[in-house]
């Protein structure tokens, strides 16, 4: 007899529990002092020995029930059929089926499936097979099984994916499967078109020693492939209407020159078709006429006529109108003449991203002014009115950016601001004008705000003098990004919810510092604002296999329960809202990312294209791959002759009887114990 889960036999240790309880109870049977045994001696004797015997039987019953339960959990089975399965010659075969998009060329996929069926048909009665499909990733679709119908159904249900080829992952998974089996013979059947780019010499994977590798090369045919390799879009926002110039790179992999018609479609509507002549094994550029870009994101596709390999005949991208980062500057009612001048001028000339600036005085500020803003700059003013302060906190928590320039303003007047948002506790103004001022000396160049200035000659903060600043003590959880020469914090960051709060302790005009006069001021303010706004240049297209981080969008819609990512095939995936906010893009086409509850088609499109390298169909000799993944050793394999556990499980149902017996024993035990205790009371 063997066990499927022998670890559960450790549960037999639980037998010690009733025995220990029994012993402990015995231990407590100490001598009890009693005034007089005069009456006890008159009571007819019922000896403890009789009682002890009954209790020992009860103890044995409990132990037996526990032992049966432990045995049942260990899943015992009689190794009758397993011995048959372990007969000499039994083989486990891993069928590795390549379904990268290059397999869609011509009749390759049909041939590959036929080869897989053939590999399954070749199974002996004692053999077992595992079906593993791979492209960019590898998945075992079945457990080791002899059920050919199951394997055939699994093969029939497969289709070509949009991923590229990675042999290493498939070989690694096959090795894992083989190392878990005990059958004497191990075999791998690799069905693929053997593209060279799918294997790199650095892939250090090996199959277990003694594994026989059979290869089925379904490539070898000539595929006259033309592929749209790369599409770029250059925006031109100078005119009244934004336009984009789209250029595509088309490659001809065939050995004959071809004239190819490429069509640009925008939002599903074909705009322009251009024909280009491409030399044999050459590239050509197709440049479309400037086309107007509607506001927001629009889907653009450059497509050529379908050929033998259809997956790379289209290239998708998303054209986004360059959305300016909205910045709200809040000033005191009696602001200095040039208090916000420098910031305004600097942001006005911003490019990539551009900024849209709104200015409000503190008393004219309304809670609704925060709507639609990405960054709020409190320029020497505090938000003291309760509803507006609460709204500001919500604004930051939901991903907004807040720049605080305190000046001489007493921000403690605004408790909500001080406790929930302030990165530091402010104290008195430090005046260094008599000593010639200090400089921004200690800068965390690894930080995104200063990353631009990390290279030599890319900006000199040391040229700026700072004559006055507010002393600040950072609160726990905040980070000092820059310090003045005397060690006092200059720029402090605090992450609140999904938003960022940045505190600049000197002024942002030329009142306390001459930084605005320095060339470094312009990029500094741009970087600071973009960082506070969490601005990212939108990507026009992704490649299959890329990971998409939706945390930013998910954070904004967290209250609504996350976001939905809808694949081109229509498969939806809920992201954020407590689950992961990163999704792997596995299909080519347009994904759509939208808040839960929004109607389909209203979300943000995400263009995903197949891996261009996969279009390189250059084969490698199968033997070369086989040699790379097989070990030279011929170590004898263990032949314990056991069937794989799941199949063996079919042969056993002993555990079920054990559980029933244990339950019956427990019922008897409880009835008996109840009767005993009832008799005593």
């Amino acid at each position, binding site marked *: 007899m063997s066990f499927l889960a022998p670890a559960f036999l450790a549960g037999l240790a639980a037998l010690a529990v009733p025995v220990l309880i029994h012993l402990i109870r015995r231990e407590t049977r100490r*001598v009890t002092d009693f005034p*007089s045994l005069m009456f006890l001696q008159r009571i007819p004797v019922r000896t*403890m020995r009789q009682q002890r015997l009954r209790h020992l039987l009860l103890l044995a019953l409990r132990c037996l029930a526990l032992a049966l339960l432990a045995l049942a959990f260990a899943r015992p089975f009689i190794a009758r059929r397993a011995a048959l399965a372990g007969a000499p010659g039994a083989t486990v075969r891993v069928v590795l089926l390549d379904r990268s998009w290059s397999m869609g060329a011509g009749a390759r996929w049909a041939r590959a499936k036929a080869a897989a069926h053939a590999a399954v048909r070749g199974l002996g009665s004692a053999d077992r097979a595992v079906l593993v499909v791979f492209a960019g990733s590898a998945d075992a679709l079945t457990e080791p099984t002899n059920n050919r119908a199951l394997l055939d159904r699994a093969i029939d249900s497969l289709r070509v994916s949009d991923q590229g080829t990675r042999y290493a992952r498939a070989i690694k998974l096959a090795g894992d499967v083989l190392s878990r089996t005990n059958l004497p013979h191990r075999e791998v059947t690799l069905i693929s078109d053997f593209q060279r780019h799918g294997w790199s010499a650095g892939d250090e994977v090996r199959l277990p020693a003694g594994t026989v590798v059979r290869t089925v090369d379904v490539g070898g045919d000539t595929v006259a492939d033309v592929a749209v390799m790369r599409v770029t879009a250059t925006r031109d926002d100078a005119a009244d209407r934004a336009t984009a110039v789209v250029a595509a790179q088309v490659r001809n992999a065939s050995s004959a020159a071809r004239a190819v018609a490429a069509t640009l479609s925008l939002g599903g509507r074909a705009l322009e078709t251009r024909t280009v002549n491409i030399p044999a094994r050459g590239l050509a550029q197709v440049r479309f006429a400037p086309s107007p870009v509607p506001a927001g994101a629009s889907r653009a596709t450059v497509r050529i006529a379908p050929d033998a390999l259809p997956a790379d005949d289209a290239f998708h991208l998303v054209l986004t109108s360059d959305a300016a980062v909205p910045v709200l500057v809040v000033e005191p009612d009696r602001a200095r003449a040039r208090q916000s001048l420098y910031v305004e001028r600097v942001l006005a000339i911003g490019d990539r991203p551009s900024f849209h600036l709104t200015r409000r005085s503190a008393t004219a500020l309304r809670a609704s002014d925060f709507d639609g803003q990405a960054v709020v700059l409190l320029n020497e003013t505090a938000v003291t009115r309760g509803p507006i302060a609460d709204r500001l906190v919500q604004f930051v928590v939901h991903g907004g950016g807040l720049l605080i320039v305190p000046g001489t303003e007493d921000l403690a007047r605004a408790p909500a601001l001080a406790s929930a948002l302030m990165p530091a506790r402010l104290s008195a103004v430090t005046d260094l004008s008599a000593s010639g001022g200090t400089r921004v000396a200690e800068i965390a160049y690894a930080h995104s705000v200063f990353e631009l200035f990390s290279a030599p000659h890319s900006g000199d903060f040391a040229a700026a003098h700072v004559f006055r600043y507010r002393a600040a003590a950072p609160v726990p959880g905040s980070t000092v990004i820059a310090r003045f020469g005397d060690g006092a914090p200059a720029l402090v960051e605090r992450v609140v919810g999904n938003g960022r709060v940045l505190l600049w302790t000197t002024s942002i005009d030329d009142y306390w510092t001459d930084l605005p006069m320095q060339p470094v001021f312009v990029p500094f303010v741009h970087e600071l604002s973009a960082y506070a706004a969490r601005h990212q240049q939108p990507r026009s297209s992704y490649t299959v296999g890329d990971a998409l981080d939706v945390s930013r969008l998910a954070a904004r819609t967290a209250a609504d329960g996350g976001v939905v990512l809808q694949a081109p095939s229509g498969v939806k995936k809920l992201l954020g809202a407590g689950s992961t906010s990163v999704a792997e893009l596995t299909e080519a086409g347009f994904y759509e990312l939208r808040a839960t509850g929004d109607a389909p088609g209203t979300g943000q499109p995400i263009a995903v294209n197949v891996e261009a390298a996969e279009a390189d169909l250059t084969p490698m000799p199968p033997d070369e791959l086989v040699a790379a993944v097989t070990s030279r050793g011929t170590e004898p394999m263990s032949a314990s002759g056991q069937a794989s556990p799941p199949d063996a499980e079919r042969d056993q149902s002993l555990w079920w009887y054990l559980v029933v017996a244990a339950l019956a024993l427990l019922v008897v035990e409880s009835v008996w114990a109840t009767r005993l205790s009832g008799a005593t009371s």
Partner: protein
Amino acid sequence: MTAAAPVPVSFLDPSVLARIGNLELLAKVVVEGFINGLHRSPHLGASTDFAEHRPYMPGDDIRRIDWRLFGRTDRHYVKEFEADTNTNFLVVLDVSPSMRYRAAERAGAVTKLTYGAYLAAALAYFSSLQRDRVGLVTFDRDIVEYVPPSAKHLQLVLHGLQRAAAASAGGEEPADARGSRRSPAMSRASDAKPRTGTDAPGSLVPVMRTLSESLRRRSIVLLISDLYEEPDDVIDALTFLRGRGNDVIVAHVLDRDELEFPFADAGSFLDLESGSALPVIPDYVRTQYRQLIRAHSAALARRVGEQRMDYALYDTAMPLDQALFAYLAARQRYSRVR
């Protein structure tokens, strides 16, 4: 001695005394005395309570002739008053090992001996307030300590009780306490068979016989014991006292464990008196044990009552003042009926 005399107060719980102070301890039997007290005497004498007039007889004190009545009736009558007397109040306290039992589980539980000492102290003090002469006898296998009844012996009695209670708490009584005040008449009791609750039935008899012989004056005798004796033996022992005209009060002190037998764990039960052990499964014997102890208590109450003695069962978990109150109320009721 006056009521204001300083006394050790450890036994005299103020709440106990407050409850007793509302009652009068009235002796069931009027005992002759020298000092006017509250005990009614059949002898008419000098007190404030008018009893009757009787014709003058030669030899009567002429000062007691009621001259007003003589003026009205022209006959000599003597005015008689009911005389209050004092009496001996003797506490007989069992200090055998079984009295040192205390329930281990109950918080604040006292031993039966301590409880008995409290009881004795309270009653002794109260009797002392009534000008009674108080005395103490502690006994184990024989008489351990004897404080003869005296109006001046309250302190000695209380000290003796304190020593006995301290011995129960500490496990062994002080060496100087044992027999220190034993009178020559008591020495015979030392030769008596050792008394145990189980293997020497009737061992209360020699102690009581010795005691009764030493009491020259009729007394109120308060016996405090757990009475692990056959009821017949107890009655035999008490008959010595009762037969000499003493008024006997039996205070049967038991721990609640002895009444309820609440033990759960099986094991050996050790007799505190004899040291013998017995394996017992409490669950099996509890019902029968309770029946036996109740039957014992009922038999004692009946037999003691038949002998015109008082019996009361005290549970050490019962508040002391409640127990005293109930008992004294009963005593007063008896006195009114008579």
